[in-house]
């Protein structure tokens, strides 16, 4: 069974997803916005897996959750890298 905190985290993440969707036109002006959104996408996936593992395929979904988290962190790192690099080129 899923935990209460996991459900709250998922709902908040969904709320943030809505915020991102609503401001997509502005976000598209941000530097390397694609990587930021992909990172968030993986983060959202990990949250969904966390909740779903309480119902079925506990082990597989748990692994998927952590793999998504890794990918989210990796893409976020790449975005951080590009953030400075883009600025540097911009000079």
């Amino acid at each position, binding site marked *: 069974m899923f*935990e209460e*905190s*996991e459900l*709250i*985290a998922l709902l*908040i*993440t969904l*709320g*943030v997803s809505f*915020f*991102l969707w609503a*401001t997509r036109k*502005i*976000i598209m*002006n*941000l530097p390397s916005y694609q990587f*930021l959104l992909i990172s*968030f996408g993986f*983060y959202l996936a990990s*949250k969904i897996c*966390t909740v779903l593992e309480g119902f079925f395929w506990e082990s597989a979904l*748990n*692994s998927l959750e*952590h*793999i998504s*988290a*890794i990918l989210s*962190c*990796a893409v*976020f*790192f790449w975005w*951080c*890298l590009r*953030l*400075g690099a883009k*600025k*540097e080129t911009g000079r």
Partner: protein
Amino acid sequence: MNPIVGLNTVSIFFITLSLGILLVWKLQKLIPTDLFLPAVFFLLLSLLGHISNLLEWSGVAPYLDRYGDLSDILQPILFAVLVYTMIQHRQWEQIVASEAKYRLLVDNQSDLITKLDAKGNFLFVSPSYCRLFGKYEKDLLGRPFLEEVLPEDRTRIRQEMDILYLPPYTCRFRHSAQTKYGLRVLSWSYRTLLNEKGKALAIVGIGRDITNQVQAEQEREKMLQRLEAKNRELQSLVYISSHDLQSPLVNIRGFAGELKTTCEQVKKVLKECGQYERIAPLLKDVEQSLYFIDSGAEKMQTLIDGLLKLSRIGSMELTLQTVHMNGLMRSIIEGLQYQIQKAGCEITVDNLPPCHSDLYQVNQVFTNLLDNAVKFLDPSRPGKIHVTGQERNGVCEYRVIDNGIGIAPEHHEKIFEIFHRLNPDGPVKGIGLGLAIVRRILDKLDGTIRVISEDGRGAEFIVTLPAVPAS
């Protein structure tokens, strides 16, 4: 080892790398603080969550689970904060860049830029304005624009600016102002900015120091007046002198005629007395001298007549009307019929467009041109003269083309000079005034004349005159 522990370790590795790279960018001042801080908080929170997970799954500290839960809840919120901060920062950057761009334009502008409120007080003055008046921006802001206008111009400028509150909400004026560089003349173009309800919000204006231009205009005006006065003086001088020369000339010719008659009578008396043979050589000398006096006086009379004619062109009154060129050309040719027949030439005329000009003067122009064309035909070939014309862009262009003796290119301009003759000793008599009169008349009629010709290959005179207005 538990696989979850391994996966969390990898995540922690990437988060640490992210933190590290952000720190490097920050130290290199490549990212601003307002972007750096939310990103770092987000990463730290993420790090906290993963470490909690790691410790929990490795069995070191299972009770840390609640920190992981807290991190899970706060992480998306911080992510949203991060994105929001970035958006704000981006917009601020764009505003700063835009302001820098326009500030650069305004600061380096030599024209004067001002913004006034609806009452005419300064809201903004460009650095160029401050420089010109030798004042600081803070001293001018809030002060009335009219304070910088010379007192004698203020009432007029106030009235001029009143129309800024009426459509089309623009006005242009110039005024004098006491500046750091002395008295200068400024030219302004003002426009009112309105709100949605049509109420005046502000007035923006661009000004320029036109002192040098105004001085140049005044100089030019003075010069023109002087030139006109000189021209009038010259015209009246020519007219008066040529007119006054007429009466002594008439006397000379008259008394020369008297002397000739007396000579004839003396000759008759001497013949009756049988003394003629003795005096004959003396009388021949007297007769020859009288002949030279008479022919010289006649030539002078022709020149004076020409000068009088030329001087009258400057003062003539024009009656502008539609001149039907086909009819006019027919009557000119009829008038020149004797010369045409004598020269044995053929004249052809195309359908000519009417022009807007003075009938009498246009008649004079084409009479002179055709007369010249007939006079200067080549005796070695049958003379042909063709007149054609067309209207183009509000201008009528007429061409008088002949197959006469032609004009060498170096004489193309000289032939329009007064008393200029190409061949003074040639068989054609004249004083070199015909084409000078033509040019004078065309100058007066806003027309032009030019010639295309080569020596021995005929000539083409191109005359332009204003076309009949469309209305």
